[in-house]
């Protein structure tokens, strides 16, 4: 009971810290984005409309560009406190609506990539540690090396060429078949939506389309997971308590699964947490090549177009994701290792 209390106090404390952190993030992003020597009107108003005072005045009024910067910032914070992220200069839609539009595709891809990285990376890392120096260790090293060194824009194009174009084993870009229409939006996660709608053909199609991009995006994470699992497991296997366990005559499988893995898993968990947040935000190349309408491309376009409301909105979202993932990882530490929870 006491331990549980400790955990919830810990979570509450962490959650309270989120507010000042987010304010800091907005202030930093706001300041940095306004330092750029460019006029947001260049994005909002077209070249030909620029000579028309009515159009320019309407734009200035709509986005409050005539107000001094500190006032613009306070106005932004005030709106933010009311759940309003502002209106994008570029898309001219509420930023919250844009983010809600692009986030599900990113979540679906990031989760699939993470599952792929774990499904292959963990067993491979464990086998590489247990059979250290064997062919499987070398194979694991090769797979990791490829994952870490191949940029997704190249591996993605190659994968499409081979598996889609030449071998015709897997579907092309996009989240569904090019002749099919996207499922009715419930959550925006196509797998979940098609499942809930009971359209199993569309479900299979969406799953099919997820394979290549998630493998390409997840490969780097796989490499990380594999190498870290291997090295931390190797370290743990050299420890005294493992020797003791073996000396007790325990079966090697028990030694490995019950005694060694639990401790070896902590560094891997840290990596997975960071990697997941990275997958959520760093998939720009994969999104471009696989025509995946996710948050990464939205963020990049916002940045190059000086779309401050969208830049602030995506930065906030990314900060929230990092904070949330770190919190989950912290809680999981406690689950794996009770000493952390007590501390």
């Amino acid at each position, binding site marked *: 009971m006491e331990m549980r209390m400790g955990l919830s106090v810990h979570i509450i404390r962490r959650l309270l810290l989120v507010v000042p952190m987010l304010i800091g993030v907005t202030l930093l992003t706001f300041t940095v984005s306004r330092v750029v020597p460019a006029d947001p009107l260049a994005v909002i108003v077209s070249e030909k409309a620029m000579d028309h005072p009515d159009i320019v005045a309407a734009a200035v009024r709509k986005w409050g560009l005539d107000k001094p910067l500190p006032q613009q910032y306070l106005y932004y914070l005030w709106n933010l406190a009311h759940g309003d992220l502002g209106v994008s200069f570029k*898309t001219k839609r509420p930023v919250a609506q844009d983010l809600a539009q692009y986030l599900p595709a990113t979540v679906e891809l990031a989760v699939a990539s993470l599952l792929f990285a774990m499904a292959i990376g963990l067993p491979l890392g464990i086998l590489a540690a247990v059979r250290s120096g064997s062919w499987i260790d070398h194979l694991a090293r090769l797979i990791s090396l490829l994952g870490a060194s191949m940029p997704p824009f190249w591996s993605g*194009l190659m994968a499409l060429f081979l598996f889609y174009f030449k071998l015709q084993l897997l579907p092309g870009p996009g989240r569904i078949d090019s002749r099919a229409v996207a499922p009715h939006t419930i959550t925006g996660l196509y797998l979940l939506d098609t499942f809930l709608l009971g359209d199993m053909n569309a479900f299979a199609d969406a799953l099919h389309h997820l394979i290549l991009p998630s493998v390409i995006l997840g490969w780097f994470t796989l490499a990380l997971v594999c190498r870290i699992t291997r090295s931390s497991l190797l370290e743990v296997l050299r420890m005294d308590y493992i020797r003791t366990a073996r000396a007790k005559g325990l079966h090697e499988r028990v030694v490995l699964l019950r005694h060694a893995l639990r401790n070896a898993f902590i560094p891997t968990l840290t990596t997975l947490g960071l990697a997941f947040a990275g997958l959520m935000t760093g998939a720009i190349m994969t999104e471009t090549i696989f025509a995946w309408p996710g948050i990464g491309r939205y963020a990049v376009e916002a940045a190059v177009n000086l779309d401050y409301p969208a830049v602030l909105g995506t930065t906030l979202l990314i900060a929230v994701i990092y904070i949330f993932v770190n919190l989950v990882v912290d809680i999981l530490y406690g689950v794996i290792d009770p000493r952390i929870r007590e501390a």
Partner: protein
Amino acid sequence: MKPVRWILVLIIVAMLILHLAACAPKATPTPVPLPTLVMVMNMDDVVTLDPHHAYETTNLMIHNSTYDTLVEFRADDLTKVAPRLADRWEVSADGLTYTFYLHPGVKFTSGNPVTAEDVRFSWMRLKNIKDNPAFYADIVADVQVVNDTTVKVTLTEPSPAFLAICAAPAMSIVDSKVVKEHGGTDAPDADQTDKAKDWLDQNSAGSGPFILTKWTPKAEIILEANPNYWRGKPKLGKVIIKHVADPTTALQMLQRGDADLLDSLDVDLVEQAKADPNLQVVIGQTLNQNYLAMTSNPELSKPLSDKRVRQAIALSVDYEGLIQALLRGYGSRAPSIIPLGILGVDPAMTQGRDLEKAKALLKEAGYEKGFEVDLSYGSNPVRETIAAKLKSDLAEVGITVNLKPMEQSVYLSEMRAQRLAFCFGGWTPDYLDPTMWTDYFSYHDRGIAKRMWYNNPEAERLAKIIGTEFDLAKREQAIKDLQKVLMDDMPFTMLYQTQQIVVMNKAVKGFAYHPVHFVSFFDLSK
């Protein structure tokens, strides 16, 4: 132990799902009576599909197929205005009043009749929303409903360009009843009170051959045929436009039969497309010009403010080499600001490279030993290679060019602030009238001329004639004269006019390239 076991179970489940997925049957599309056309393109530019808010490129194609305009330019003759919703029209002797007679009995897809009131509402909404395309309606002073099928438009000044403006997709006629039902208004404060944009982003309220049924940003646009279209039933049942940014992948989709039409292919991939027996390649002549602009302001660059130096620079560029080597021949060149295909262009006026003459001009201006200048441009891969070529071309006459690539948005704001001396940019027309070029490259207080501090009363006098003269021969002469003035002052030298490489399945019939809205889906069959 438990979490480890739980994770292992998760891994096994994930592997099973992936395995099952690989074996799963491919989803079959729902059958439709008329063929579906799948088009792949980069539609990153689409931000809205409300015709009175949209001011990008892809939306022109969508609006041309979902709405009707009063008149249009058909792909086979870009110099002639053809009737569309309006059967005929009259222009008053003073050029200030246009009377349009609408085709009787036309209905919107909602079933409401198309009336003169819809024309009035549409144009006033466009004007009062005050978003980017509002400038199309600038010249409209008043729209009067004479009767259900007759509408009288009064202009702020006589304009021979008005019919061309009426053909622009922004001037589309919307169903006023439906738009009002969804919060739309044409009131003077429409920029703050109109609420129909969200609805019009997902639906069309027009009388066009197709109906917009869905738009998922950066993913897809779905159009369904309007079986009651007044000019005949479309030959396609559905058009699915998919966003695919990578050209290699887009071509692979056509080669595999997953897509039927691709709007613009990279020059590097043309041979691959031509080699495929199932595909056809069509080269479209765009009206997009790329130019070098040189300031007339001595404070920004003393050498460039001397017209002899500007002439020398124009004579130093190896235009032919640029088009052949960098664009692989998929480009052409007009003599001055007016692109090939538009009234008043005389290709014989085109001036090429002449290094001796350029050197002589530089010597005369006192820059025999050359000078240094920064070339600014919005960076993209094509522009980078061309800028490098320009640098080496100008080095041959002793001019040292420092390349200053910028993000497009930074470039635009710097240029608009009139701070740049030497620019490499592009110009795309919104409607097919010569004023689209002559207004923006001649008046000292407008467009590119303003940004480059260009000010010549003679150029403005000619631009004024072009903007107000109804006599075609006199207008054409003024366009020719203006180009001569501009080629003498040389504030701009046109580098190349791009060509668009269109690829489609051989089964697709009826394609005619249009430089404004790309294609009319109504013409296509499969």
